[in-house]
């Protein structure tokens, strides 16, 4: 047995990893999450706004990081929809346009009574603008300097939601979901911190340590990695139990299942590797 393990083909490990991720995904196994303080800060930032507030949703990520970030973007969208907020979508990533489309899909499919056919009065899609942090600097001071039209080419002065919006300092909350540069850090450096715009972000695990120091002064709260997304979904479900039956609202929670199993698998692999190593040493294979 140990002999087999000693010369274990790594393809068996790959197969185990595949099973560890695929099976919980198909089964839809979820584990209860306890929202941390940081996540509750995000939840409250969205929830404590009066119904129908103005929220900018900046989705700066691409399909490659969708696995980690889509649940956050969906949860933000869903939470804002429950609160009937007016949503302004925008992105600094060219591929972010289809990410915005996903969120708009949620608004129209799950909350048709609030959002269906209400383009321009309940939500607006500003689309993509090139220029990285330059765009942020512009939109916080003068929105119409960088966005003269929305994604469909309609002049912003002809859209009810944007007609009187001079810049995004006037909105009540900025939600950013980001996978790197330009993203959360730029929004904080050039948007929320100089102009004091209440901001919450969702970002990848890699960015999280960089963003931590900005909390709570420049940043109200942060969702880090898939765990943050899962906790946030749990927080929303706790407050709005009607979502319990909506499988889409548990995207992040469902993905925590594979995380747990895969982490346990990794730990058992590390332990197994060491058992083999100790056995080998007893056999005198390492001198």
């Amino acid at each position, binding site marked *: 047995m140990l002999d087999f393990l000693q010369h274990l083909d790594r*393809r068996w490990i*790959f197969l185990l990893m595949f099973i560890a991720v*695929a099976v919980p995904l198909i089964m839809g196994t979820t584990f209860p999450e306890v929202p941390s303080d940081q996540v509750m800060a995000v939840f409250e930032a969205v929830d404590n706004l009066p119904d129908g507030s103005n929220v900018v949703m900046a989705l700066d990520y691409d399909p490659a990081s969708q*696995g*980690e970030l889509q649940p956050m973007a969906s949860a933000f969208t869903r939470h804002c929809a429950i609160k009937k907020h007016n949503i302004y979508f925008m992105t600094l990533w060219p591929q972010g346009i289809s990410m915005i489309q996903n969120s708009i899909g949620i608004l129209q499919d799950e909350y048709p009574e609030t959002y269906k056919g209400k383009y321009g009065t309940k939500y607006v899609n500003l689309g993509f603008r090139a220029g990285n942090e330059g765009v942020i600097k512009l939109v916080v001071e003068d929105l119409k300097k960088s966005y003269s039209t929305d994604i469909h080419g309609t002049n912003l002065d002809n859209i009810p939601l944007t007609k009187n919006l001079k810049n995004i300092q006037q909105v009540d909350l900025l939600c950013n979901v980001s996978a790197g540069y330009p993203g959360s850090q730029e929004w904080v450096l050039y948007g929320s911190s100089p102009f004091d715009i209440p901001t919450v972000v969702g970002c990848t695990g890699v960015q999280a340590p960089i963003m931590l120091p900005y909390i709570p002064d420049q940043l109200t709260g942060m969702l880090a990695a898939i765990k943050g997304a899962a906790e946030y979904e749990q927080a929303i479900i706790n407050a709005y139990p009607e979502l319990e039956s909506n499988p889409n609202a548990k995207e992040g929670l469902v993905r925590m299942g594979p995380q747990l199993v895969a*982490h346990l698998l990794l730990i058992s692999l590390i332990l197994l590797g060491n058992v083999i190593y100790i056995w080998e040493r007893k056999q005198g294979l390492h001198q």
Partner: protein
Amino acid sequence: MKQSTLIWTILMVAGGGFLLFQASKGNGRVYVREIPVEATASQPDSEPQVYQWTKNQQVPQSEKDDPGVSFSLSRTVGLWVAAFCTLAIFSFLYGDNPLYKFTEAIFVGVSAGYAMVVAFWTEIATNLFAKLLPGLARITFYPDIDSTTRPELLYLIPLVLSILLLWRLSPKGSWIARWPLAFFIGATAGIRLISYLETDFIGQLQSTVMPFLVFASDGSLLWDKSLKNTVFIVGVLSCMVYFFFSIEHEGIIKYVSRLGIWVLMVTFGASFAYTVMGRIALLSGRLVFLFNDWLGI
């Protein structure tokens, strides 16, 4: 060998059968809603003409019977191609095989072409052509350039440097191509020297200067904060000692640098485990694509 071939054949046939079954149930198809677009000519001097075309918007399968929604062949083919590509890359985990080689060849070709197209439109067209010949750029690719924009002649410098670089292709005097490279390597060295010293040397030192002992406002010692600070400062210093090149790791230095390498190992172990989460999420993302978007399980 034969046994494994048999197992694989059975698996393939079973997989194929399952795919056919799912496809026959209508999964793996993409539907779009056609949105008419109407645009009128913008220039005052052009004929007042209305241009029309349609735009497609992808809709979930549940809306396939809605009015205006139709089956999209190109996107359905795309979905299957994407699924094929995903499976072909995963097959590399089993071992090198013709499927992977084929996909790899496509990947290299498409990505090299993609990078060049992006570089052409975002750099050469936007940052050189439009800067040097704004008038011509306005009537071709970028009608939103202001008609009063003047050419920025400064951009002749990168143009000349680029031509010098391409001189490499000529049979004689290809050494001249080293001039632009030398210019940019020199620039890189100068810029990075300043930026690294400022943010990573001075900046990191600044955020590390803190007291060993922390007191509460009533004068009592805060044990946990003091401990944290002390551990932190000692950690940074011992790692710095580890990186010293001039001293051999002997005597007291041996122990300090040993501590330094331990701190580094903690750092690496933690970062490794911390990144795991994101990577598994990526795999989940791919599997969700296969299971939900394609197979409709």
